[in-house]
């Protein structure tokens, strides 16, 4: 140790003089400033490091929380899968495929129909707005071959001359389900418009070019019946000729009080529990013969028969011949002949008959260059209804004939302004000539 000290001292004494050189004040000061600066930077770095440490710790905490949430979510997913598997295991057999097309969007609902308002003036009476009518038809198509259709008739009408005030009526005109089984066969069921002639099916409010229905329709024939029907049409060749047919069974006419008295016949009241034992049956066959577009002839023959009194002692029978002819787009003539017969307890056999024929001519066929004239169609109708019975000494014959002249002004193809004057000849004193205006819209 002493030797080392001695050697060190000797070396120190022998070192060059520059190792012991003095540091100037300026250099010392500069060095001092540098050290201070470095100390400041170190302090700053220390602070930054502390901050980074804190952030790192926060990130660690957040990472732990996310990992915990992930674990919980995974567990929830596993639980849900287990529940689904358990439910599938307990599910019953899958539903069988149904034969109708319900797997595509193939349904449609629409409202068609018509609305009318009438102004009427009978001879000897005051003119007034006589009635307003709204008759919607609901169509629901449940596929390619299934249709449910229902028609309603809401009417407000003046009670005069029978009484004061007005009456609002709401009727179900028809409600039927149609199933098109093949191109030539359709099954219908429900409250159906009856194919006795063609007027009830094709003569709705705005389709009838005059404000009133033919006398014979309301007086002698039921317009609808509750039952079932098979109908269809067969093409005859490729020229458009058609043979159409229908056959049906319905409740049919009934007796208002169950008796067989002549005054009790009820054409449209047999709905619900059948008041008599046997339903009525009927049908129509027809030929539609088009020569070319707008030139065609249709002929039809209809019949219906059934018991009408509760005892089933009397038959009610009806026959109708119908025809329509179009010669060009401007001219049409159509009509029906109706005959009915039914037995009664008090009046014997009652026979009733009636017919109507209607002609229409559109003035556009004259090719006149007058404003508005091309929108006018002139209409004429002659209709008759009469009935007779003979029960020994008690004979009666009622007879009404009506001549109607009128027009239709086509504001549009579906908005019609109609007017007519009806000349009545009747042994019923309540019947009188009348003038009617009607605004009718088909939608």
């Amino acid at each position, binding site marked *: 140790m002493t030797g080392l000290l001695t050697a060190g001292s000797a070396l120190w004494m022998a070192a060059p003089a520059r190792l012991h050189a003095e540091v100037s004040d300026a250099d010392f000061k500069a060095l001092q400033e540098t050290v201070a600066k470095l100390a400041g930077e170190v302090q700053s770095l220390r602070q930054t490091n502390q901050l980074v440490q804190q952030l790192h710790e926060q990130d660690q905490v957040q990472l732990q929380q996310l990992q915990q949430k992930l674990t919980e979510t995974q567990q929830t997913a596993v639980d849900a899968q287990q529940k689904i598997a358990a439910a599938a295991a307990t599910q019953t057999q899958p539903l069988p495929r149904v034969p109708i097309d319900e797997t595509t969007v193939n349904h*449609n*609902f*629409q409202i*068609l129909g018509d609305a009318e308002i009438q102004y009427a003036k009978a001879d000897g009476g005051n003119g007034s707005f006589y009635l307003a009518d709204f008759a919607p038809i609901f*169509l629901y*198509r449940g596929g390619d*071959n299934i*249709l449910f*259709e229902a028609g309603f008739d809401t009417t407000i009408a003046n009670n005069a001359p029978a009484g004061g005030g007005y009456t609002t009526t709401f009727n179900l005109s028809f409600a039927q389900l*149609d199933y*098109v089984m093949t*191109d*030539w066969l*359709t099954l*219908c069921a429900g409250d159906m418009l009856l194919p006795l002639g063609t007027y009830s*099916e*094709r*003569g709705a409010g705005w389709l009838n070019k005059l404000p009133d229905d033919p006398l014979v329709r309301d007086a002698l024939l039921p317009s609808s019946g509750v039952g079932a029907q098979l*109908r*269809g*049409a*067969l*093409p005859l*060749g*490729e*020229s*458009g000729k*058609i043979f159409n047919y*229908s056959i049906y069974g319905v409740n049919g006419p009934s007796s208002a009080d169950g008796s067989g008295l002549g005054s009790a016949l009820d054409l449209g009241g047999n709905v619900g529990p059948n008041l008599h034992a046997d339903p009525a049956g009927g049908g129509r066959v*027809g030929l*539609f*013969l*088009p*020569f070319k*577009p*707008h*030139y*065609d*002839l*249709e*002929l039809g023959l209809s019949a219906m028969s059934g018991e009408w009194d509760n005892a089933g002692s009397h038959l009610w029978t009806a*026959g109708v*011949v119908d*025809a*329509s*002819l*179009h010669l060009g*787009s401007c001219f049409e003539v159509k009509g029906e*002949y109706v*005959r009915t*017969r039914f037995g009664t307890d008090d009046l014997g*056999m009652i*026979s009733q*008959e009636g017919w109507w024929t209607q002609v229409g001519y559109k003035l556009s066929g004259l090719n006149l260059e007058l404003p508005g004239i091309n929108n006018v169609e002139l209409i004429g109708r002659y209709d*008759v209804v009469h009935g007779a019975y*003979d029960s020994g000494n008690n*004979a009666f014959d009622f007879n009404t004939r009506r001549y109607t002249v009128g027009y239709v002004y086509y504001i549009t*193809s*579906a908005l019609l302004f109609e007017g007519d004057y009806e000349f009545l000849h009747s042994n019923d004193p309540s019947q009188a000539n009348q003038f009617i205006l009607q605004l009718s819209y*088909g939608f």
Partner: protein
Amino acid sequence: MHNPPFFSWPALALAAGCAFSLVGAGRAEAAPGDTNAVAVVTSSPVPVGPAPKRSLSGAELYSIHCNRCHAERYPTERTAAQWKTIMLHMQVRASIPGQQARRILQYLQENSGR
């Protein structure tokens, strides 16, 4: 008073008038492939016979059927789906064979409003 026969003279007159019209309609009919058509002789050794009958198009069937009871409605008044429903209703109400109804529907849908 004796009971008149079930069908009286107005029915017979109506039926007779329609029968005459039917005869006239048969003569007036101008169906495609009419056997009275004049055969056209060409240079071919086999004479050309009457043109084969063709089916009526949807437009033709539309003009035949769709103004019998009401004024023709324009195809643009309804959508294609609405025409499908209406044609099903008309097929039943107007007794139109299914094949003709489909052709009319195709014509209406091709020219429909949407």
